C-alpha cells in the first residue's frame, strides 16, 4: 500500500443532490460527495450502478445523450457547472477525460498531443514542440516514440501506449481534474500497472477521479473510495464514501462489506 498524505486536502468538486435521468428512467439519485483536490478518488461498484454516468456528469458529457436530464449541483471550485452561464467548452478544458478504450485520433502522435493546445489557439511551433515533448515525458511514452512521434500514426501504437498517449493528450492542456473511465480495463496487467504508477505520479499536480471495476486497483491507487450500488428500483446511489484505507478495512455499510469481500458483483 502506498504512503498517504496526512494533511486534510481541500475540496475540488462538490456534488450536491445530483439526480440523473435518461428519458423516463432515473439512473442516479441524490448523490452528494466532495472530491478532494490532488487526490485520487475511485468510484467502485457493480456494472450498471451509475458510476460511469456519475463520472460523465462531472464534465457534462451526459449533455449530448438524448433525453438526459440532470438536477442538483456540481460545483467546481465553488461554481456550479450546470449553471447555464457556465461555458461547457471551458469546463472540459479544466476537467479532462480519459476513456475506457484508448481513442487516439488516426493522426500522428504529435498531432494527437498538440490537439488540445491548438484548440486553445497555440500556434507557435516551438511552443507546441515543447508541450508535446513534456506531455509525452510525463506519461513515460517519450523514450518509446521520440524517434518517430512526428510522423508515426497513433493507431500503430500498442493499446497500452495508445492509452498513455490519450493521457498525454489530456494533460497537454493542463486541466485541473482528470476523469478516467476504467482506463486500464482494455490493457494487460503490465500496462495496467504502468497506468497506475502514472496516476500516482500525476496526482501530485492533478485531481483524479477514476471509475474502476477492479477493487484491487481501487485499493492500490486511490486515496478516496466511493461505492455505488443500485437500489431495488435499479436507481444508482452512493452507499459509502471515505478514505480508501478505511472503506476497505472498516466499511460501515453491510452492502460495502458484501461487495468488497466478493459476496456479489
Amino acid at each position, binding site marked *: 500500500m502506498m504512503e498517504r498524505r496526512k494533511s486534510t486536502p481541500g475540496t475540488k468538486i462538490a456534488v450536491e443532490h445530483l439526480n440523473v435521468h435518461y428519458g423516463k428512467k432515473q439512473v442516479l439519485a441524490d448523490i452528494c460527495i466532495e472530491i478532494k483536490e490532488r487526490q485520487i478518488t475511485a468510484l467502485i461498484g457493480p456494472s450498471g450502478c451509475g458510476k460511469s454516468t456519475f463520472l460523465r456528469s462531472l464534465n457534462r458529457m451526459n449533455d449530448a445523450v438524448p433525453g438526459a436530464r440532470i438536477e442538483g449541483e456540481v460545483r467546481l471550485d465553488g461554481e456550479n457547472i450546470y449553471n447555464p452561464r457556465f461555458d461547457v467548452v471551458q469546463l472540459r478544458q479544466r476537467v479532462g477525460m480519459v476513456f475506457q478504450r484508448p481513442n487516439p485520433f*488516426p493522426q500522428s502522435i504529435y498531432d494527437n498531443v498538440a*490537439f488540445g493546445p491548438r484548440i486553445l489557439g497555440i500556434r507557435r511551433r516551438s511552443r507546441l514542440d515543447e508541450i508535446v515533448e513534456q506531455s509525452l515525458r510525463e506519461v513515460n511514452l517519450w523514450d518509446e516514440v521520440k524517434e518517430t512521434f512526428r510522423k508515426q500514426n497513433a493507431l500503430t501504437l500498442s493499446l497500452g501506449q495508445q492509452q498513455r498517449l490519450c493521457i498525454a493528450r489530456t494533460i497537454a492542456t493542463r486541466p485541473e481534474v482528470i476523469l478516467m473511465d476504467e482506463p486500464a480495463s482494455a490493457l494487460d496487467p503490465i500496462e495496467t500497472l504502468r497506468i497506475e504508477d502514472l496516476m500516482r505520479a500525476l496526482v501530485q499536480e492533478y485531481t483524479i477521479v477514476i471509475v474502476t471495476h477492479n477493487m484491487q486497483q481501487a485499493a492500490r491507487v486511490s486515496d478516496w473510495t466511493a461505492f455505488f450500488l443500485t437500489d431495488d428500483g435499479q436507481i444508482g446511489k452512493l452507499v459509502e464514501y471515505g478514505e480508501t484505507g478505511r472503506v476497505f478495512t472498516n466499511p460501515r455499510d453491510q452492502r460495502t462489506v458484501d461487495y468488497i469481500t466478493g459476496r456479489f458483483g
Partner: protein
Amino acid sequence: MKKPSSQTRVARLPSRPLEFAIESLIRVLGFSAIGFVTLIFIFLLTEGLPAFLQVRPGNLFSTRWYPTFDLYGVLPLISGSALVTITAMLIAFPMGLFTAVFVREVAPNWAREVLKPLIEVLAGIPSVVLGFFGMTMLAPIVREVLGAPTGLTALTGAIILAYMSLPTIISVAEDALDAVPKSYRDASLAMGATRWQTIWRVVVPSARSGILMALMLGMGRAIGETMAVMMVTGNAARMPEGLQAILKPVRTMTATIAAEMGEVAHGSTHYHVLFGIGLILFAITFLINLAVASMMFQKRSRGGLR
C-alpha cells in the same frame, strides 16, 4: 459409425435437379456478364487501335480537330473534357462535402430524413432533362451575367456536371463521415473542442480517404457524361487557352463521339479515331476506378488493424 455422408451424396444429385439447374443458370449468367465486358473491351481495342496506326502521332496529338481535312488532333477534346470536369469538381466537391457534413453532423433528425431521399431523387434526374435545363435556364444567365458571347460555354457544362455529380459525392462522403467512430468525437468534445472544431479537425480528417473516394467517383461520373454536356458546352473543338477559356465553348471527348459517330463511314480513319478517343476515355476512367479501388483496399486493411 453411421453413413450419412454417402447417403446424402447419393440422395442429393438426382433428388435436387432444380437446385442444380438454378445453380448452373446463375453461373452462366454470372460468367456471361464478365464475358460481355471482355467482348466490349476487345471490340473497343480492335476498332480503336488502328487509329493509332493510321494517323501519325504528330497529327493525332496536335491541336486541330478537322476530320474532313484529315486533321485528327485530339488534344482540344481531351483538354475540353479536362477543363469541364475539373471545373465541375471545383464546384461540386466543396458543395458536396459541406452538404454531407451538414446532413450527417449538423442537421436535426427530421431534416436528415427529408434531405437524404431528396438527394437520391437528384441522382435520378435524366441527364437530357438537365441538359435541357442548362440550355434554357442556365445558358442565358451565364451569357448575361458574365458577359460571354454565348451561353453555351465550358462553365455552363461544368455547372450542370457539378449538379449531376453532387448526389454521388454527397452520399459517399456522408457514408465516410458516418463511419468515423463515436469515440473520436467523444475524445475531441471531452478535450473542450467545440462542435465545429470537432467536425473540422477530427471527423473530416478521419474520413479523408472516404471523402477522396467521393471526389474520385464524382469525377468518374462527370467525365463520362455525354448528353447534358453536348447540349450545353457549345461543342467547338478549340484548345482552351487562358482563364477566359472557361467562358468559351469547348468540346469534350464524349460529345465528339456521340455527335460524329452517326455520320462517319464505317471502317474509315475518322471512325477508328472516334473509337481511339473511346479508348483514351476508357483508360482515364479505368485509372480513376483503380485509384478508388486501391484506396478502398487501404482503408479496409487499415480497418483490420484496429
